[in-house]
Structures are given as C-alpha cells and as structure tokens.
C-alpha cells in the first residue's frame, strides 16, 4: 500500500484514532486464534529428524582407512567463536599430517558452518545432532573420540554439500 499521507493523525480515521474499536478488533482476532489447530510438536516423543541442510554439531568425517582431516587448521582460523583447536602431527601415510588433537568447545560453537565451508578436504561437516547435553564445562569440549563419525552416517550432508556448496 502506498501511503501518501505522512502524519499519523492524517492517516487515521476518527474511529481508528479512538483506539478502542481497533483494540477490540485485534482482540477478536486473537480470540479466534485460540480455537484454531495447534502446531506444537511433542518433542521427546515425536523426534524431529532434520534434512541434510541442517547445521547441527560439527563432526569429523571418518573413512574406512582413517580420518580425512589433515590438521591444516583453517577451521580453527575461520571459526568466529574460536571454538576449534587443532594440533597437527606427522604420520607415515601419504597425507603427511594428521590431527593429534582436535577439540571443539561446544560452549563456544555457534553452528555457523564456516569450518565446513572452509575445509579443503571436506573433513569437517555439520551433522544432524542437535540435542547436546553437558553436565560440565570440560564435558562440552569434544575430542577426536566424540568427533569422528563414520562417513556412512553423514551421507545426507555430503550429498547436500555436493549439490549446493
């Protein structure tokens, strides 16, 4: 709607300026809403399974012959919340480097997905995990044992990345 009149007083009619009829109208609307169908999901019973586009907890892709990560540290560098710490070490494999330590502090993580976007090896991806519970600050720092997820469980996300990244 193209509003020509600028001042509020000019735009409103007498009844509108009185407020009360308009408030009554609004209350009519809210009253009607009360009897409409509800959209609430009963969460713990009805679990929501996200699609591949969902950005949940970041995890490391684990292939049959070991992790993809080469500990380049770009995820750590790009992380705006400084949630990731990587310590590289040398290995005898073709890719000379591997992460000796890879830790994500889930209290810092903001699920922005930059780590996934910057990763040159597609080694860190956002999973579908969203129900994260920690009982201490130390527990929220996830190490390699908790981060490594087998590639077969991440197919949805990898497919999504192939199509849209």
């Amino acid at each position, binding site marked *: 709607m193209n509003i020509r009149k600028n001042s509020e007083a000019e735009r409103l009619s007498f009844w509108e300026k009185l407020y009360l009829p308009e408030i009554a109208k609004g209350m009519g609307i809210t009253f009607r809403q009360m009897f409409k169908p509800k959209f609430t999901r009963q969460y713990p019973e009805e679990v929501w399974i996200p699609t591949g586009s969902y950005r949940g907890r970041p995890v490391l892709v684990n292939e049959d012959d070991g992790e993809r990560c080469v500990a*380049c540290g770009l995820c750590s*560098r790009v992380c705006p919340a400084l949630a990731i*710490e990587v310590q590289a*070490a040398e290995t005898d494999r073709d890719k000379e480097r591997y992460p000796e330590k890879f830790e994500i*502090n889930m209290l810092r993580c903001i699920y922005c997905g930059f780590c996934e976007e910057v990763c040159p090896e597609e080694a860190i991806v956002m999973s579908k995990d969203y129900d994260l519970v920690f009982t201490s600050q130390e527990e929220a720092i996830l190490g390699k044992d908790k981060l490594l997820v087998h590639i077969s469980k991440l197919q949805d996300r990898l497919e999504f990345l192939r199509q849209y990244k």
Partner: protein
Amino acid sequence: MPHIYIDDKLIEAQQNKTIIEVAFENGIDIPHFCWHPELTVAGNCRMCLVEVGMPKKLPNGAISVDSSGKPEISYFPKLQIACATTVAEGMYVRTKSEAAINAQEAVMEFLLINHPLDCPICDEAGQCKLQEYAFNHSKGMSRFIETKNHKPKRQSWGPNVLFDAERCISCSRCIRFAKEIAKQDVLTFVQRGDHVTIELFENKEFDSPYSMNVIEICPVGALTSKDFRFKSRVWDMSFNDSICPGCAKGCNTKLGVRNNEILRIEPRANPYVNKFWMCDYGRLTQYEFVNNNRITDPYIKVDGNHKKVGLDEACSEAANRLKQFNPHQIMFVGSAKATNEDNYILAKFAKHLNTKNLDCLKYIDENFQDNFLRCADKAPNTNGALQVGIKPDLHSVRIEQLSEKIATGDIKAILVMEETFEEYTEIFKNLSELKLLVVLGYNHSNLTSIADIILPASTYAEIEGTFVNTDLRVQHFTPAVVTSENLRFMGMKMSRLDKFGAFNDRWTQHQVRNSRQSWKIIQKIANRLNANWSFRNSHDVFLEITHNIASFKGMNYELLDEFQGLTLGKAEKPDPKVRNYESHYMKPN
C-alpha cells in the same frame, strides 16, 4: 649515475645495478622468486619479466618526440628479466604494463602446473611466496588438466632440513645459498624439464651450521624444518622481534610464540649485523630454557627444604640476610647473559651496599667461532655488562679468585643474577660453604638446589632491554612471551589464541609464569635496604644509563629501534637506514 624511468617515475640509479635492485631501493616491488639481494643472480624463475625500452632516436641523433612532446619509446619486443638486466642511461621500464602482467600470469600458471597445491599439509602455508603471488599475480585458474608429476617427498638433506621435491619450483636459491653463503657446495639440479629436482651430491649431507636459512629463503614449502615440522600454523603464532642470546653476535630474530611457548626462532634482517641469516645453533637451542623447567615462584630454604613464598617475602628475607654481612664479605655475580639494564641496577645495588666485589662469568669458546655469524663469546652481552660497571677493581674479588676466597671465608654471601655456574664446576664445588646464596634464575638447576633464596627471573624472551654485541652495537628488544609482569603490556602482541582465551578454554591453559625482570627484583631488595629507587620500566633504567655512562650518551629505545641498533659512543652517527628486503613473511591479519 644513469637516470632511468620505472613506471614513469624518474630514478637516479647507481651504475651497474640491476633493474630489480634499483626498483626495490625506490619502493617499487617487482614480483620475483629466485632473486635475493645477498645471492648471485640466477634468472631462472622468469617471474620478474618487465618491459624495457629506450627512446627512439632520429637519424640526426635527436630523440623522437610525439605530438604532445613526450619522447617516443621503442620497447624491446621480448620482455627482459629485471634481476639480470643492468640499468642504462635513459632506460624506460614498465613493470605493470599489460605485457608484463600477462607474462607474470603465464609464469605463475606454468609454475603451478606441477605444484601439488597441498597447502593444507604444508608448513609454509600462510607465509608462502607462491601462495601470495597466486593471489596477486595469477589468473586464478589453470588450463592444465593432466596428471601432475610426482616426485619424492620427505627427503632428508641434513640434520635439520627436510626436502619435498614436488613443491619445489626450482628457483635455485638453496643451491646458491649453500654455495655462496654456507660455503658448502653440496646441492645441484638433476634431470631436465618438468622432471627437474634438487639433489645432494653422493655421500654428502647439507649439515652446514647455517643450513636452516634455506628454509626461510625457499619461496615455497619445499624445504621445511625438522625441528618445527607441523608444530603450529604460522597464523596461530605471534612473531615478535628479539635478539638471539646464543652468542655475542646479537643476530636479530623473530620469536614465533603460541600458547605462550616459543615454537621457532627465525632471523630478522639487519644489514649491519646478520643480514638475513642466523645459525642453526641459535635457532635450535635458544628457546628450550624459556619454555621448560622454569622457576615460577620465589623459594626460601627452611631447614634444608625449599618453601614457596611470595615475592615480597622472599625479597625482604634476602634484604634482611644481606644486611648481616660486611660489604666486603658479599660478592655480586652479574651476568653476560643479562641485559644492560639488569647489570646496571646490580652494579648500582653493589655501590649502594658499598661492595666492590662485582664480576661476571665469561663464556669464551674458540671452537664455536667462525668468520661469519658465530663468535667465540657465547654470552650475548659481555661487552654491555662491562660497560655498565660489572667489573672488579684492583682490590676487589675477581671471579677467578672466588673459589679460594670462599674457601678462606673472605666471601660469605653471594647474589647470583641469571647464572648457573654449570661450566664453572671449580667455583660451584665451594658454593655450598657460603652463609648466604641468593639466586635469580630462569631454570631449576644444581645451583638453585643449593641456594638459600631463589628468585624467578625472566628470560630474554620476556623482558624489554638492550644487549651490546661483539661489535659494540647496542640493540633493543621487547618481550614475546607473557609473564604475569608484562601481561597487560603484551596485549595485542600475543598470538590469536592467547589473546582471546577464557578460563574454560583448554587451548589457553598456557602457563603465565610469575617471573620478574632481574632488575625489578633487585630494586625490590634494594628498596628494603633504603635505596628508594623508583624505576618503573626498562625505559627509566636505560635513561639513567645514558645519563651516567658516556658511551651510551644520546641513545634511547626509539632511536635504537629506528636505526636497528647504534654503536657505543657513536649515537650521533648512526649507520644509514636502508629498506630491508623481506622475501616473504606472515602478513599481519
């Protein structure tokens, strides 16, 4: 003196200089890989191609001009490499013309054909010349779709250097360095074309004391340090300027620090001291004692056991016990490893107590000396210590007499600053007979185990101060590692992770040591003996040194930084400032 035009800028050049040198001196950077100011010209990377031309001459010898009155230039049909073309009177050079840029982009595409692009794995990533040029001087794409050549990786060249043949772009800087600077001609190209690689001569090893310099000059990550390999990404470290304390040469260095640990030491250009180099000894040995086995708290010996106490308590104890001796029973051991500031305050303290017994240990090792960057004096500041007054006079006890004087009971108390007596076993044997042994030290050692009072001193990497090198050059340096004392001052100079960590981040669980610069501890002790000194920082101390000691006259920290050091007694006549060449480095983010 030929006059040349580079990018339409008139420059008066020196005779026999090449275009790239003249351009560099005048602030114009021509992209290059193989050229290095300290090495001979190889001209094999072809990155520095520029358009070169001369004004067109008419048959009568006059210069042809166009309608607007400008001289007409006839450029050579083929581009010239700026590193091997000497300047000539009236020469015109275009470094950013379309032809030059096209040539640079073509060279970049060519160099990247067989480069593996394994930057995520490569230690050089972040400070790589090839990476930098791939952004600045490349098309950003490659037409090469075939398989890349594979060459051997992880070849050991020597005790400290590892070679990755795939990443090499055959600039030959390392070959020339080995031959010309390290004087160990063991490297050469083998094979041809895209199979070219660098190999050692048979049964030879590149084990020169300067071998690790090839790691810095290598424009790519083909040469990496065995010591540093994969310890940290360069962008996670902070690089702060320092001086190598390995010997009296005083090579200028940068300290790479992450998690409050020195991870590597690399040279910093100073044309009057170390040019672009430093020795492997300096790189590999001068961080261990900063990172490990540190004394972090003051201790007092109670009933034969060391008890941890507060600094104030330890200083009061030291003052109270020093008071009980006659001045001539006390000996002060200064240090050639400590800064001028520390030694000056120690000397001042000795004077305050009327003690003449003041000397320091010498570290002369003729075997260490060569005629390049290593000198026989293995302590960084022997000259400085002598200058600021750490020297015995005719009647006082010298360090050589210390052993016997302790035995005879003439010396009953010693205050040792930043020394361990490790190489002076003769003296060390008798030290346990002393009534009082106060030690200001970095590391736990045999000396601290017999000390009565231990005070935590900061190392060279944690303090601000000055060293005087073997050529009497005074050089200023600032801290790179955080202690509880300089925490606030360091602030943004810390590495990224150190800067922004909180208490619950595991990556910031670095140790912030509770150590102090030696002169601050000594001032604390002195003030408990009514000295009333109020130096707040090293600036104040150095200011007093420049007032009281003639050879330091006219110096201050700003001037020392500006001229990269001043020679003693010649503060008014500093060496001329030049533009320091830096091949490639971590760009500040």
